[in-house]
């Protein structure tokens, strides 16, 4: 499969150097915090209300 040439190819360890940098660590922490919030929202939204469980399906 041809590579996805959407950006110039980064150097092989560029992602690692970025992750280890203060800037990278801050961005990673932001991403993880955003992820935690989104997962919490999804889990709350999926939870079935006991009233819905008892809702008569009648028509």
């Amino acid at each position: 499969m041809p590579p996805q040439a959407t950006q110039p190819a980064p150097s092989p360890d560029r992602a690692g150097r970025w992750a280890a940098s203060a800037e990278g660590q801050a961005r990673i922490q932001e991403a993880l915090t955003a992820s935690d919030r989104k997962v919490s929202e999804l889990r709350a939204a999926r939870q079935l209300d006991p009233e819905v469980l008892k809702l008569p399906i009648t028509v």
Partner: protein
Amino acid sequence: MLTGEPFEVVEYSTPALVDLLVDKSGATRDTVEAKAHLSYFDGYFSHLGARTIVAENAYVDRDFLEDYAAYYSRCFADYPRRCTRLHFFSDPISKRRLTGLLTKGASSATVAKLQKGYLGFVVVKPLPETIIGRTCLKTYADDVSRRFPVLRTYNVSLFGIDLTVETLAFQEQDTAAAACATSALWSAFHGTGLLFQHPIPSPVAITQAGTSGVPDRDRAFPSHGLNIEQMADAIRSVGLEPYAVDVGDEEILKTTVLAYLRAGIPSILTVMLFNGGQRVGGHAVTVGGYHLGPLAQRHYNPMSGMASLAGRVDKFYVNDDQVGPFARMLFDGQPVTDSTTGKNYPFSVSTGWGPTVRAVPMAVVVPLYNKIRIPFSAIQDAMVGFNELLKAMQMAGVATIPPDLEWDIQLTTVSRLKREIIDDARIDHRMRAQLLLKSWPRFIWRATAASSGTPLLDLFFDATDLEQGELLLHAAEYDPRLGLDLRSFHAGLTGAQQKYLARSPVGKVIAWYR
């Protein structure tokens, strides 16, 4: 009423269909003409190009017979136990021709020609109102955007002529042995029965199973419906496990239903019906197909922060016992406000009940084989975090990640997965052999990231594992630079970040790149 003739042949037209439904059931013409099914069938048969109806009289239908034995036979009124089966063909067929086939025998070429034009059948029950029994009709054409993953083959013997139809069975609730929840379960069991090898109970047996557990204030028969807990009990009665989630959020509804539907597993969608804001009541349908909007309609979902293939779904095709098989439910963005309570529902879907009747999705219940232990939610949670990390890397320009990633999360089986891999020309030879020769569990979650329809990354999770297990079986990067970037990224993480990740759902994915 049943005639002495074993069969009749009539040219298809709406009046002819009405005449047959009146003649073969115990319903009046007014009752038949008032049924929503009639206008639905009319449109459906026009679309399929029906030309001929063959009425198979004195037909013994197993499902009706079981309902009859449990309920109708004990009524004071006399109800017949035999039904009529109406077969539909897109070719003109005369009674003389069919008689000729039955007397002289049908060659394989003749049977093949009949099969080509065979559209399926509708069993007409000999009841005063709820007359549409087991119905197996060909679907609209399956194509790239319109998919019916739950179809199975039904074998039909028309006086010894073997025919088949690919569909998912439908029937109307009779309000005695079954209400809508039972009919939706019955349709779903037709899909899972073949897939997971369980017996398919009749409507009366489903209602009994649903109501035999927790005592209810109301009587079981005549059936006035089941609640979700009772539907879950009915699912357990066939040896499957129910997976139920709230679907008040449009993204959760579409992603959950599609994740299982792609594996051929139908979902039961429970909705609250509203007519002009007035609550009509709870209703259940079986989702058997979907329609995707074009790639250009890539949809970014705010709750998960992901763009997903499921987000492009603009229609579900459902078996709605009050409308017909594969009836459309459109996601047209209309909110609903309950005129009694003032509660606002941010989205609803259209129904075949009429232009003013809206369905507000409440919950989906998916009947699952017990070895499918990892629910879709666990995979979705992991992918939310992974997607956030990919976005951060993409924004920092430190990884080869296109900005238009679209995720497709679906359950699959090892045989289906390997069949897809062996046919996928986009996978290079070395990786294809590696994936095909790998030992996999029977059920697998597959999360594919694609850009403009071209896959970039595939993550394969063990759907039979424990949630605390490693889950990720394999990651296939179709662009090798992405794998290098992710490994480099992992190497740069601090110890504290690695520990944080290990406790979060995304840790199961990131751990692959250590």
